């Protein structure tokens, strides 16, 4: 028994503690508070879960939208199918209504050679930067010694009319348009027996390589001072 146990003190503090509280009422208050707290926690957890799900859904939609966005290509250094771009001589030379046609002669053996060399339609060998043609095609030629310069009026942009030129070499020819201070490869035609590989299809220069077993033509056109400058290199192996 502790030395501090004192009946008088216990009586005193018993009175100081006041009357005994109602247990049932107090317990109901406790359980009610517990239910309230649990409801709040459940609501918070549900809200957090909803936020998470909505965020995840938004992220998924954003990713899907991003994957479907078409990015314009700046260069045509690689072909669409990942293989070497081997355009054949069956690629027709086309001219729009705004350009003049080059003088051409039909190739003698073009059809058989092309059938063996190309697995893709000729128009797909140049990527989307190449404009679709509207007019009828013209058969390819083997040799064009001087570039045929054609100028066509552009009704939509009278201030900077586009200029379309065709440049030819031993391995083939390319048709390039100058518009809005930028070059664009319109078309290219490989000479019979040559394979074509597009290096640059637009921008400050256009470049296409034509090769066969013994010869290579590096057909390049640069944009200098607002003019197209032909820089063809002919190399014999």
């Amino acid at each position, binding site marked *: 028994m502790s030395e501090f146990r004192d009946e008088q003190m216990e009586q005193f*503090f*018993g009175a*100081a503690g006041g009357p005994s509280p109602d*247990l049932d009422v*107090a317990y109901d208050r406790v*359980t009610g508070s517990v239910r309230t707290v649990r409801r709040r926690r459940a609501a918070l957890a549900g809200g957090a879960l909803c936020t998470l799900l909505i965020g995840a859904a938004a992220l998924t939609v954003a990713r899907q939208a991003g994957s479907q966005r078409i990015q314009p290509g700046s260069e045509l250094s690689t072909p669409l199918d990942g293989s070497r771009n081997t355009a054949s001589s069956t690629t027709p030379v086309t001219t729009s209504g705004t350009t003049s046609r080059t003088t051409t002669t039909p190739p003698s053996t073009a059809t058989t050679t092309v059938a063996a060399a190309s697995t893709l339609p000729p128009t797909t060998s140049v990527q989307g930067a190449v404009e679709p043609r509207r007019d009828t095609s013209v058969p390819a030629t083997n040799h064009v010694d001087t570039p045929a310069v054609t100028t066509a009026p552009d009704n939509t942009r009278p201030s900077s009319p586009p200029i379309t030129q065709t440049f030819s070499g031993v391995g083939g020819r390319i048709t390039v348009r100058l518009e809005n201070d930028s070059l664009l490869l319109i078309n290219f035609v490989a000479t019979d027996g040559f394979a074509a590989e597009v290096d640059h299809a637009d921008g400050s220069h256009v470049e296409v390589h034509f090769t066969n077993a013994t010869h290579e033509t590096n057909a390049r056109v640069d944009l200098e001072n607002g003019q197209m400058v032909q820089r063809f290199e002919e190399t014999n192996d």
Partner: protein
Amino acid sequence: MDDVTGITEVVVVPTLEDLFRAHYARLVRMLTVVSGSQDAAADAVQEAFVKAHLHWRRIAGYDDPVGWIRRVAINRLRDEHRRSGRKERAMQQLQTATRDDAVEWSNGIDVAVLLADFPRQQRLTMALFYVENLTVAEVAATLKLSEGAVKFHLHQGRERLRDAFAAQQERDSR
């Protein structure tokens, strides 16, 4: 002689409601002595039981779940007093001589008025010892005091109360 085997010790774990019904009233009275307000005491104890309810799986495994609840209630009361200054307001109410709800001892002494002059830790020590019937060691553990400090508070508080009783009885006898 029969071989006594298979004796199994059955430990009955009390539910929280059992603990509530066994200890709630005493906890409230103890904190009423400390705070001077039975409402504040009841709020603190009920909040402690709510916390115990929410964490009962963990607290049920403690050696002394009631001790945990008691400490939570005391801390809750301290925080409340510190936060809102209710302590000072309660003291002013307690020291008002014309209170209608004054709790009087059998001699007619307003015990709350007497206790209001005591330091809080002394009131708490005495309330735990005399209302909760804890031992000196248990009071020391609850308040994180040394046993010597608890004995000091008990001794000093008892002397002050006795002096107060004597003075009150002397005034009454005149």
